Structures are given as structure tokens and as C-alpha cells.
């Protein structure tokens, strides 16, 4: 019970101090709109908004979570307020869960902004919402944990931002969003399959437009496995690097 009081208060503090700040709310709104517009402008033919949804949702989660967590943790480490959390009698797993939960919730909220816009533009009947939510949740978890890995590796906020982009941009092109994995050169395909986003995108494609390539269950299992692996790796790195 005592631990959960701490967990809840850390989560609420992060929501208030970082995620619910006007610049971040506007980012959550502007980013999906900008991506959608980009697809509209880029395409010479009529664009099907529903076709765009898996991509815009995935990218909204990816961009929302990775940089946010990396930046907020690096910021707290610079101000040494993160030490206060490490000194609290709170299990390290629960502490990191509290720190990541805010970013995960922020990512999930970002993902559903394009869905809200799409509601007014196209018919969204036939979408398997449970698996959409599951995919969004797991993409948010894995992306957040990638952000945590970045936070552990850097000291400055600008390094966190630079490092995030180093990860994110190759992921966009390798995860099957723009070019399907099958259409990628054979030597790049292994890279696609080691990216959690590939599986998340495939679930969203299956659930929204019924055009995924892998089985839903397999995708979910792999994505959950990535989540567990990244969490264990992050905790290991936190112990190694932050508890000197």
C-alpha cells in the first residue's frame, strides 16, 4: 500500500510537471495533424485516411514517448531530483514503472488524437478496437522503454533529443510503415524484425485495415516479449549506471 502511494504520487507529479504542460498537449495535437497533412500533400492520388491511421498512430506514440521520457529523466538527473526518488524506500522496478507510466499514458493519448480526427472524416466501422488498444499500449510501452535506455546513456537533455532521433528515424523506414517489410532488400529485413515497432504496426494494419502480414497472437507475444526484455535491460542499466 505504502509503495503504491509513492507510485501514484510520482505518476501524478510527472503528469502535472511534464505531460500536461501546454507545449506537450499542443505537441500531441499538432504532431498527428502534421503527419496526416504530409501524407496528403505527398500523395499524387486521393489518400484514404483509414489507410493512413496505423502509420500516424504508431508515429504519434513513438515520437511522443521516446523523447518525453528521455528528456524528463535527463532533466531530473541534471537537477539531482531523480536522486530523491532513488533514495526513497521504493522498489526500483516500481519506481521505474511509475516513471514510465506517465510517458506510456501520454503516448496512448497521442495515438488516439488522429483517431478522433478520423472519426469526422471516414467510416471507422469494422475496426477491431481491442487489438488496436493492445497494440497502441504495447507500442507505447516499448517506445517508452527505448526512451529510458536513451536516458540512461546520456547526461544532457540535448543529447537525449539527438539520441532519440538517431533511433527513431531509421525505425520509421524499417518498420513496414512506408515500405512493407517484404519489399525491403533482404539484408535490411533482419533489422526490421528486431524492431518492436514492426510488430505494433502490423497489429494496427491487421486491426484497422485487415492487411497485416503476421498473425495477431504472434505479434502480441513478440511485442510483449520486447516489453519485458527492454524493461529488464533498462533496470539493469539503471542499477549499473545510476547506482554508481
Amino acid at each position, binding site marked *: 500500500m*505504502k509503495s503504491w502511494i*509513492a507510485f*501514484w504520487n510520482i505518476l501524478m507529479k510527472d503528469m502535472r510537471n511534464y505531460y500536461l504542460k501546454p507545449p506537450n498537449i499542443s505537441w500531441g495535437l499538432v504532431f498527428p495533424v502534421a503527419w496526416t497533412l504530409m501524407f496528403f500533400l505527398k500523395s499524387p492520388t486521393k489518400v484514404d485516411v483509414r489507410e493512413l491511421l496505423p502509420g500516424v498512430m504508431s508515429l504519434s506514440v513513438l515520437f511522443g514517448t521516446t523523447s518525453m521520457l528521455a528528456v524528463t529523466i535527463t532533466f531530473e538527473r541534471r537537477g539531482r531530483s531523480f*536522486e530523491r526518488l532513488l*533514495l526513497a524506500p521504493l522498489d526500483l522496478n516500481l519506481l521505474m514503472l511509475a516513471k514510465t507510466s506517465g510517458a506510456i499514458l501520454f503516448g496512448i493519448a497521442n495515438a488516439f488524437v488522429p483517431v478522433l480526427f478520423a472519426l469526422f472524416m471516414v467510416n471507422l466501422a469494422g475496426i477491431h478496437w481491442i487489438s488496436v488498444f493492445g497494440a497502441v499500449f504495447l507500442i507505447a510501452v516499448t517506445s517508452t522503454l527505448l526512451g529510458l535506455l536513451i536516458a540512461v546513456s546520456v547526461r544532457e537533455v540535448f543529447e537525449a533529443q539527438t539520441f532519440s532521433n538517431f533511433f527513431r528515424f531509421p525505425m520509421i523506414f524499417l518498420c513496414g510503415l512506408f515500405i512493407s517489410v517484404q519489399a525491403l532488400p533482404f539484408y535490411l529485413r533482419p533489422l526490421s524484425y528486431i524492431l518492436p515497432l514492426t510488430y505494433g504496426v502490423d497489429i494496427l494494419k491487421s486491426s484497422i485495415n485487415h492487411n497485416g502480414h503476421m498473425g495477431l497472437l504472434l505479434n502480441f507475444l513478440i511485442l510483449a516479449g520486447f516489453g519485458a526484455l527492454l524493461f529488464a535491460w533498462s533496470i539493469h542499466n539503471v542499477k549499473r549506471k545510476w547506482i554508481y
Partner: protein
Amino acid sequence: MDIVEVDQLTKKYDDLTAVDRISFSVPGGEIFGFLGPNGAGKTTTINLLTGLARATSGSARVSGYDCAGEIKKAQQIMGIVPDESNLYEEFDGFENLSFCAALYGMQKDEREKKAKELLETFGLTEAGRKPFRAYSRGMKRKLTIAAGIIHDPKILFLDEPTTGIDVASARQIRQLIQKLNQKGTTIFLTTHYIEEAERLCNRIAFIVGGKIVRIGHLDELMREVQQENVVQFAFADGVSNLKPSIQENFPDVVVEVPENQALRIRSSRPMNLTPFMRFFEQKNLPVYEARIMRPSLEEVFVKITGIELQKMKQEKEGKGKQ
């Protein structure tokens, strides 16, 4: 019962040995001072005891809990005030205290009540609703200490609590430390202000280059350097011309004239002051003051460590202002 037990504790960072096989214990209820220059290993020792660092070898226990394997249990009874205030700039004083209390699992009503009490104790009630970033250095320090004791810890680690703050706030903090100790909280204090340690601590350890070079009660440490007895007499008139005749009458002592109206007598044996008083009376010299001179902790520190105190202070204060 010892609340801190440290045995052969060592911390190495690559080639640097920050803490080198230190052993000591701190009984409950004591104010224990950890004194040393910059880079001596004071903060590393606190980090090892509080769970922010892992020992390379040796062991440390706080309240019986192993600092390596049971640190979360140990943290439950520890209060930690780092050398730099590390509260949340965006939160106000009340919110910061309330948040810190929540980290120890305190319920909302309880933590709000405690936060209000502490703001009052530390004279910060009015500032309680101001953001932390708007606080002065002294106010920040006080709030950080308040955050460290919000859960009524058994032991409070204070790392340089008065560095870089104004005299009035420093004095107030020292009084608060004494009050806390009177209520039963054990204090583990690192400082480079020798006079602060002298005023507050029951026992002191000198740490230099990661090693404890001396540890003991204040009186024991003083006695170690007090190899002679010194008495200083103060007069209304100049007495420098008396030195040869005193030396002649009292051949067993060494006479010094630190200033024109004062005489300092040194002896390797305890002194009887009556013959001196009689001598001055005969010379028609009224004595205004006779003072037994004791060595200061500063002298003890310099003698034991060979470190220039002024230099150490300047280094630390320079760092504090950054």
C-alpha cells in the same frame, strides 16, 4: 546500540580509490561529524550508506540492515539531505514536502499535516506557497532539511548543511540540528566548517584521501594535541618589558608576549597560578583576565591532517557558489 556499522568499506572508481577500507560505528542518538577536505570521500561514504553507490568491498549496516542487500529497508528509517538542494523547482514548498512524504508512503492527511508543521518549524509558512525556484539559498536549504525529516527518520545524513548560506540561516540550521538530536535523531554530519563540527558533534572522524586518519570524542582529539598547558594574562598597561624578569623567576615555563598588554605562559606541567598572581601584584600590575588556552579543533585538524584549513574553506565555498 550502534545505528551505523561500517567495516573495511572500500569504493573504487577505475584507478581511483574514493573510500579506502574505512571502519567506524555511530551509536544511536549521537551527532557524528565527518570532516575532510574536498574529494576526501565524505560524500562517497554517505552515498554508500544511503544506497546511491555500491561498495567495491567491505560492509555497511544502518540500523542492522545491510546497505547492499537490504537498502530499501534501511532507507525507510533514513533521512538524507544532500550537499545541494534537490527538490522540485516547479513545486511550491508545501507541495515539495507533501510529495517527499508520499515517497515514504504517508497518507494524504498525515503528510499535509506534517508539511504544515515543518513549514512552521522552519519559519517557511509564508513561503510555503511560493515555487521552490523563487526561494533564497538559505530557504532552499531549510526546506531540503525539512524534506529529509518529514518521515521522522531515526538517522539523518546531512551533507554540508550550511555551505554557501547566510550566517543567520546557518545558525538557525545548527539550532535545528541540535533540537532534532535532542528528540533522539542520530545525526551523521559532513562539514568542512571545523567550528560547526566543534559546536555540534559528540564524535568526529577526520577523513583524508579516502582514509579515516583519526576518530574520537572531541575531548580525546583535543587532548591528543594538548601537549602543554597555556595560560594567558591580560593587563591594562604594556607588559612586554616584563618578559625577562618573569623568565628569570619562573625558569620552568616559557613566556611569550602575543601583544603589548598580554602575556602567555606555557608549561609542560599543570600550572599553579598563585605565584604568578603574586608576582604581578608585587609589580603593581592588576590582572584583568587569566584564561586557560585550549587547542581548537582547527588546530587538531591541521596537526593531524596537515591540511591548510583556510585553503579547504575557500575551495569549498567557491564550489558552493557555482
